[in-house]
């Protein structure tokens, strides 16, 4: 319950400032200033945008299939937000005590593709449908390397429970998985690339590519329902960044062994690690161009999947010969 309240509040505040951070990051990388007018240095720009967005008309075109159209944004957001239930916050609040935590998370999060497909199909619009189809193809493909790279971590740590996994890494920087077991560096890179694809971020934003599909599955949406999609996208970014922080960078544990322990420090460590990963996601977004559909598929099936299977084998050997 505490976990739910914490993550919901954090997610809503995070989205407001992440949109601002995203625009500022983009601006600085492109020699611009970004939003500067609303509030000092433009910090209230997103709040102004949010107010404008909430006042917009909830447009329902005549040709849409009404019920799936109306429900889809909520399914997408619910699927993403359910994933937060198993994430630990600190050593006291460990999230839901499901023993198959990571497995549950990956299973539930893939449900958001269902909502995206519903939105695209119900919109009765060829661009929305293209976007939805691309999204399904992309998420189904990238689930495979994502799942296998998570499996590498599961083999090394020997548990599926995320709070147990964090507890295993709570003895300073050297006990973090990525430092203690350098064999996990390549699975982390695979995990990061696949998580970009899972959360429909550039360079894998084919489902909603503004320049060719005019927003993809969210073309027909406006106002609050469109905002739900936006919220779900940023929620997915944050979810996978926290998951990455828990699995590879020690979760809520401090980098120095006895410094900064306790529940408050724990949540600060966890969230700052996740926010650094989110910065990297934004940095990638404003550096790399979008992939073509065939490049997307070949990257997943020809490169990431075989590589992750090889890494799974190597991790198993590492577990057999080095750890035990």
């Amino acid at each position: 319950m505490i976990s739910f309240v914490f993550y919901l509040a954090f997610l809503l505040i995070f989205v407001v400032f992440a949109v601002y951070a995203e625009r500022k990051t983009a601006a600085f990388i492109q020699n611009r200033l970004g939003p500067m007018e609303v509030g000092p240095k433009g910090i209230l720009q997103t709040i102004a945008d949010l107010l404008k967005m909430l006042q917009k008309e909830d447009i329902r075109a005549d040709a849409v299939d009404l019920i799936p159209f109306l429900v889809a944004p909520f399914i997408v957001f619910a699927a993403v937000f359910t994933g937060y239930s198993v994430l630990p916050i600190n050593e006291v609040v460990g999230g839901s005590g499901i023993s198959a935590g990571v497995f549950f998370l990956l299973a539930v999060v893939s449900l958001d593709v269902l909502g995206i497909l519903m939105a695209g199909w119900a919109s009765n619009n060829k661009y929305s449908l293209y976007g939805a189809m691309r999204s399904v193809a992309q998420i189904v493909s990238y689930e495979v390397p994502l799942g296998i790279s998570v499996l590498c971590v599961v083999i090394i740590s020997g548990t599926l429970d995320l709070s147990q996994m964090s507890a295993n890494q709570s003895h300073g920087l050297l006990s973090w998985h990525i430092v203690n077991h350098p064999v996990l560096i390549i699975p982390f890179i695979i995990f990061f690339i696949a998580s970009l694809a899972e959360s429909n971020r550039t360079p894998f934003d084919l489902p909603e590519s503004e320049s060719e599909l005019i927003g993809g599955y969210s073309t027909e949406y406006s106002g609050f329902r469109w905002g739900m999609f936006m919220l779900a996208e940023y929620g997915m970014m944050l979810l996978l960044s926290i998951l990455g922080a828990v699995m590879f960078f020690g979760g809520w544990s401090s980098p120095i062994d006895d410094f900064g322990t306790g529940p408050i420090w724990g949540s600060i460590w966890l969230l700052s690690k996740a926010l650094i990963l989110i910065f990297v996601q934004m940095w990638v977004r404003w550096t790399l161009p979008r992939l073509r559909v065939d490049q997307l598929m070949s990257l997943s099936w020809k490169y990431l999947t075989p590589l992750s299977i090889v890494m799974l084998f190597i991790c198993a050997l590492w577990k057999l010969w080095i750890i035990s």
Partner: protein
Amino acid sequence: MSYFGNISVAAKTTWKGMLLSIRYFFQARKRRKKEWIGEDNYFNKANGTFTVQYPHEQIPIPDHGRYQLHNEIDDCIVCDKCAKICPVDCIDIEPVRSPEVFGQTSDGTPLRIHAAKFDIDMSKCCFCGLCTVVCPTECLTMTKEFDFTTTDILDHNFSFSKMTETEIAEKKQEFEEYQEAKLKAKPELPAIKKEVDVMKKPTSKPVFKPRIPKKK
């Protein structure tokens, strides 16, 4: 390209691109200085943010910028040359003659005509600068002011005359009285042509024949 060659090219190019963009990200701490185009290093500013937040700040313009027209009405002798040369007829002048010299401009030219109206419609102006060239007293100049945006297009008609309605009527009255007095003083002379006659166009038009070069 081989399979592993692809991987290595992808890794190298991605790494290079990422380094490039993060360098720009950290350079954004610096900002471009407000230098105008005449300065030597104007084109050597690849580093730092480039945005000029226009209404709050602007790149300096040289003082001899060719933007909005300004007329120093005290120095204007209302010669009407600017209105005649204007290719788009954006200058509208209404002169009122004075019976005697009533002042001097700053360069010593005597003032004989009052400017009852001296309007420049900047929305018609084509910024050619011909009016400033012909101005004998150099009272009509182009300034560096370029932002004279208005919500009503009629506000683009800048009026430079300082005379009030009563003053104009007074000066007109004065001149008419002077003319009448002049007529009475010399009744034997033929009447001075009225202004209307003077302004009439000659009945026979001068004929210009274009010269057509003969073919050889």
